[in-house]
């Protein structure tokens, strides 16, 4: 067999993805009024300030828990908040 036609086994350079448990989305709410919803956002104030203001203005009957930071990492919910929050809006504006 000519060298040009020789068959080679060539290896994969790709790293290994460990098996990932896929989570179904959390059940949706029947309505948002009266619910405790966490709004956790990191990034630009041009988004965070305007959105926080509008959320509270347009949806005054929602019990908003606001978590915000200028930084790149979202502020994590506490264990207690994880138990009580019925919905989460996570904002990442970078």
């Amino acid at each position: 067999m000519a060298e040009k036609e020789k068959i080679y086994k060539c290896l994969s350079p790709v790293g290994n993805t460990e098996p990932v448990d896929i989570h179904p989305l959390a059940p949706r709410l029947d309505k948002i009024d009266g619910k405790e919803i966490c709004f956790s956002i990191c990034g630009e104030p041009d988004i965070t300030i305007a959105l926080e203001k509008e959320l509270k203005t347009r949806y005054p009957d929602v019990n908003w828990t606001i978590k915000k930071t200028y930084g790149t990492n979202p502020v994590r919910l506490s264990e207690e908040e994880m138990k009580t929050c019925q919905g989460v809006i996570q904002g990442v504006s970078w």
Partner: protein
Amino acid sequence: MLLTFDDVAYMNRDTARESGTPNIRMVWASRRTPGPADVDNYIGPLLQGLTRPLTEEEKTGGTWSPENPRILFEGTLEEADKFYQQTRHIPPPLNAPLAIYTDGSAIRIPTEERVKEMLSGTSHKPDELITYQSDRVTRRTEVGGAAGASVELRKGDAVQFQPLKRTATVEQVAVNAVMAGCKPEFFPVVLAAAESGTLNGDNVMIVVSGPVVKEIGMNTGNGFLDPGNPANNTIGRAGQLMAINLGGAVPGVNRMHASMGGPFNRGGMCIAENADGLPEGWRGLNEEMGFKKNESVAMIFGPSGIQTNFGGQHSPGGYRALQKSGHGGMARRMGVKGIPGPHNFLEFHAFSLWANREGAYTFIIVPEMAHHLHDYGFKDKKDVYEWLWKKSFIPLKDYRNRSWPDLITNGWMGIEKTSGKHWKELPDDYMVPLVADPFDNCILIAGGPEEVILTLSGGRNSTAGSYPVFSVDAWR
């Protein structure tokens, strides 16, 4: 619900899948529309996403376990050339084809035989997982953890290759080293760089220090940044291939500052320190980082890709005039007209270092200039770092008129480090350092006789957390 920008949708979907929530609902904000008008556009869908009934797909759980066969392709070398060079179209805002397995240039086909030869460069077994060879702290993003949070890692912990937190074996690193064109004797350096797991920076530079530099013939002299030296070129390229293949990096998509990318990442960047050029009493990078002089290390630097400050502007002739006889513009600015050197030439450069950026610097200087600093009075590199740090202080009233401090101070809500006081309690004339720690600055010696300096914004701590330096010897 996730609120983010539409141009990072591709990256967010990848991240969501890796985190086990591939169907997370997303709503897009605009990078251009002012806040209030933008909110009008997305606030409805954002809230509706909390109540709109789930689809069957959204209700579905399970396990995602992608296959990764060891043998990726069988065929002739000519066929393999085409296979490994295949591209896929990346949608806007990139809107161009990107290579799937390469950096876009032709590679050396990783046949079993070639990979086996590469593996002869280390005593580690092919199927050994890449693990940390020492305890360390890093900013690695943990599954379930906050992005960028510091975590303690123990010797033996599996390295997660960023950005997609994949793992890899010694053989898989060897495959990338073959593709980059490395020789087996370079392989321990490639493995040390692999141990970082964080080669997906916006502008990555691998710096090698210690005896291995000479052993594998790295160029630390004239033109060390130029192409031509096999070790410098191919180790740097292996770094980029590992980011793409082991980490799942898609340049222009899931890297910080993807909007432009980083010039060092085009072909990969690896340089080495010229230990022979160190003045007496100055320690090399290996010793500075806690290793012995006879130990070899690879350190991952992240000079800023776009907020960059490349090069220090002085003419070599003007520099010589300064040091020889105190003539020329440099001497006039520094107030040493007519006084022969040695002079601290960094005084000249400090004039503009922090004009429009904050943070530490990495200075690559030629041996002669290092000796000038030494003879001026800096008997230890640390003395230079301390001097630079002190030079970086500015009044708070000026510090407020910069871009990054809004972020660094969390909107001025945090505590100022040097005073321990809240930012809002400090007077306008309070002096704030623009470099967090003197040792964040770094000086490397390399280059030839001509008196030039390469000034890179970003010091030794600018990527991958607390000092991403890795033993080469551990991987021999």
